[in-house]
């Protein structure tokens, strides 16, 4: 048996059990899981957990990667301070 307490999203400390519950509640893609659990909402923006979440969705929903809509990519590519973005600092 898998450990339901295993952390999948490290930034937001979301467990496997919480992700499985989100899928049970109706999540059908990475964005649906994210909105329900915050997986992928932390400082790395899913760069470590998105593939894991996708893998769990594929397995639970019996889908292929091509069936799953990816979470939309949004700027910034890496965290940037308000100071640099707002033009006050370099």
């Amino acid at each position, binding site marked *: 048996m898998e450990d339901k307490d295993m952390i999948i999203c490290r930034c937001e400390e979301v467990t496997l059990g919480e992700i499985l519950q989100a899928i049970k509640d109706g999540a059908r893609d990475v964005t649906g899981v994210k909105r329900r659990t915050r997986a992928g909402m932390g400082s790395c923006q899913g760069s470590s957990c998105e593939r894991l979440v996708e893998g769990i969705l594929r397995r639970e929903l019996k889908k292929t990667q091509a069936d799953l809509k990816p979470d939309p990519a949004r*700027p910034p590519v890496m965290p940037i301070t308000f100071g640099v973005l*707002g033009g006050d600092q370099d």
Partner: protein
Amino acid sequence: MIADKQPGFDTQLAYRSQQLFKEIVNDIDYNIEYTQKGSIYLIESEQEWEVAENYVKQQVADGFPMRMMDRKEIHDDEPHIADDIIGGVEIECDAACDPMAMAYGLALAAQKNGAEILTFHAVKDIKLDEKGAVKSVVTDQGEILTKAVVNCAGVWAPHVGKMVGIDIPILPRQGQILVAESTIPVGKRKIVEFGYMMAKFGSSDYKRNVSPEIEKYGIAMVFEPTSHNNFLIGSSRAMVGYDTRVSIEIMRGLAERAIRFFPIMKNINVIRAYAGLRPYCPDHFPIVSPVEEVPGFYIAAGHEGDGIGLGPVTGKLISQMITGEETELPVERMSFARFKKN
């Protein structure tokens, strides 16, 4: 929030919704991260102070919990705001929740009470009977017979309206948001620049001392702490159709305006930017109304940026309309018929 409402019916509607939120929090078995910490307006100039004072006087006379905060009080209470802020307005009753949790929580509660929710069903058409009343909804997975349809499709409401042959004057008004990393508490509650009121309602008799870009994109600082120690920074306005891409010009403008009010943010990270579409109605009032010419067809859309705040009262009023009860608030101001040309 009632903070950004015009005195009178606009505020009354939002206030009733706030009361309903409390009932919902008790009724549903889902954490929507509801907090009632109030909100604050920041005042930059004597001219804003004067406008704010009049606004508060009027709202207090109508019985709403608002008050002015002088320079000392506001800086003691919110120590990270810029030194030159001369005062503020506190709106004690304003609250916040996680909007996505709110949607999921309400959906799950509805299911528990017997509602059947069909996700991933595309609505293709709405059929009317020989008298012109609603008969059925046609989806890509079958037809559903019904006597009542509520069009609550937000910015897409006009497309659903076309299915029954009516024109709904709602347009998408884009807004962009910066998401900050989880960090120290920069502010205790929702903090908004007073100029936001002017940006929202497009008041022309007042001009802020801001760069042309800030003016052009309707940028006004809105700070919203989340229950996960992040915060969000808005707000912007643009009519760009259904485009939800963010733009670097607006991201820069939002950051510039955020630092102006919170210099401490210079060293805090932005981890994400996103854009969304507000369903904008030309007179800034939503449409919460039956459609006379199509019996059984109702509209609950066009709330611009108030969809979450006004959600509970909208649901209540629409349910009263459908069941033929008397609505608990006057609804003429939100009628669909107000757009008919005389």
